[in-house]
């Protein structure tokens, strides 16, 4: 068995607002092995984004431990590459300069960062937009650029927060297959948050279902499908049954 890239034990998060305490996550346990693609599904507002914020280190847990590469509760900022819901590209920088952001923040030489950005853009078919500004990009393109920006910063461990949430269904499917290609290329470890069950099944080795108020892990499912994956895999009988089961679980949560 691979060593755990990420292990979370007894994680709780309570937000304190004036006159109100709002617990979002409750004694949550999960592990992501090195090189694994793990998805978290859950109803909207179930604290999925909060969980990624905590793993990325932009927020601190109220209780519990988050260990990346076995180091518990150290400084997690920079230990993962975070792809947020919106592409969040800087409008005053070209696509190439946006992709270079990570290395530039790390203080690495510009020429080196530029060369790496060019290689990555070329490899994933974005060379033709390298010199353009984000405002001319389609939603799908902007999403790809955001992913490559994060890959150049840290391709080892990716956190994806509904990275294709704002896209139309077709572009979404294309992007999912593209993500699989990128993931296969770099053997990254991925923790992906989504509310799209088919997306989770297509991409993941393992799915955690988040549920309850405050939320915790209610179910853990291993996806028994060979790789590389194609859309045809989704039509296998046991996968269709699994999809139905997960859908029922989420529907029940939404009604609570």
């Amino acid at each position, binding site marked *: 068995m691979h060593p755990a890239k990420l292990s979370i034990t007894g994680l709780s998060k309570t937000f304190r607002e004036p006159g109100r305490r709002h617990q979002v996550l409750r004694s949550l346990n999960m592990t992501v092995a090195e090189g694994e693609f793990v998805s978290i599904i859950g109803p909207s507002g179930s604290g999925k984004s909060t969980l990624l914020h905590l793993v*990325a280190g*932009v927020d601190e847990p109220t209780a519990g431990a988050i260990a990346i590469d076995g180091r518990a509760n150290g400084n997690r900022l920079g230990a*993962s590459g975070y792809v947020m819901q*919106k592409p969040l590209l800087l409008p*005053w920088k070209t696509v190439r300069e946006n992709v270079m952001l990570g290395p530039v*923040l790390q203080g690495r030489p510009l020429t080196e960062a530029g060369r790496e950005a060019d290689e990555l853009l070329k490899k994933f078919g974005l060379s033709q937009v390298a010199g353009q500004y984000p405002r001319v990009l389609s939603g799908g393109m902007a999403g790809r650029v955001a992913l490559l920006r994060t890959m150049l910063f840290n391709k080892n461990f990716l956190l994806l927060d509904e990275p294709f949430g704002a896209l139309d269904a077709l572009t979404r499917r294309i992007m999912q297959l593209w993500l699989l290609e990128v993931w296969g290329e770099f053997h990254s470890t991925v923790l992906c948050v989504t509310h799209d069950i088919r997306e989770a099944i297509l991409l993941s080795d393992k799915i955690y279902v988040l549920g309850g108020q405050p939320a915790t892990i209610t179910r853990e499912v291993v996806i028994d499908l060979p790789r590389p994956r194609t859309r045809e895999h989704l039509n296998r009988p046991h996968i269709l049954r699994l999809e139905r089961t997960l859908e029922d679980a989420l529907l029940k949560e939404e009604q609570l």
Partner: protein
Amino acid sequence: MKHRWFSRLWPPLAALALILILWELLVSATHISNHILPAPGAVAAALFEYRDILAVHTLQTLLEAVLGLGIAVALGVAAALVLDTSALVRRAIYPVLVTSQTVPMIALAPLLLIWLGFDLRPKVIIVVLYCFFPVAIAMARGLADVDPEQINLFRSMGASYRQTLKMLKIPAALPAFFSGLKIAVTYSMTAAIVGEYVGAYTGLGIFIQTSANAHAVPLVFAAIIITSAVSLALFGLVGLAERLVVPWHHSR
């Protein structure tokens, strides 16, 4: 390109021309004396006749306005950066800033004259007092309005406070900064004139006052027209700078 400029410029120019024609006709039809309401032609003649003297006064006022504006921009941006450091600092300083703006500047002008004398400094300070606030408030708003998720992204990439400020917050705040600067620049000439009004050797403010005292009404109008023209030119320069500095905002 040329066509677009023309289509944008002709309506206000036509309106201006119409006003001038009506004004000229009104004055000649009613036989109002030039010492009460001069016709545009008389103002133009005065402008031409006194061009050398007006140039000296205009340059003096322009110098005060530009100096004051420059200092106001530096102080305004600095204040905005201080306001941005924490919510506590913001809550402490913001009301003080707003209150400071309720002080009638025109009442301060004679005081500054008593304290500092007849030289450049009191005028520049008046300009700073007028121009500082719009710059500071607009810049502070711009810094505060940066998408928090964008800031989280920078933090997740291990960016320092300085890096986040330099590579994210300041560029993101530039469009807001320019909208504040546009307001400030239109105040600057008027503010310099207010400063000169209470006491100066040169400047459009003192020129207007002495001309009015001598009932040289066409010269008052001439100075007013110069003030407006210079203010418009300064505004235009800021607009041009905005296009150069924040092209991603303007081309939307």
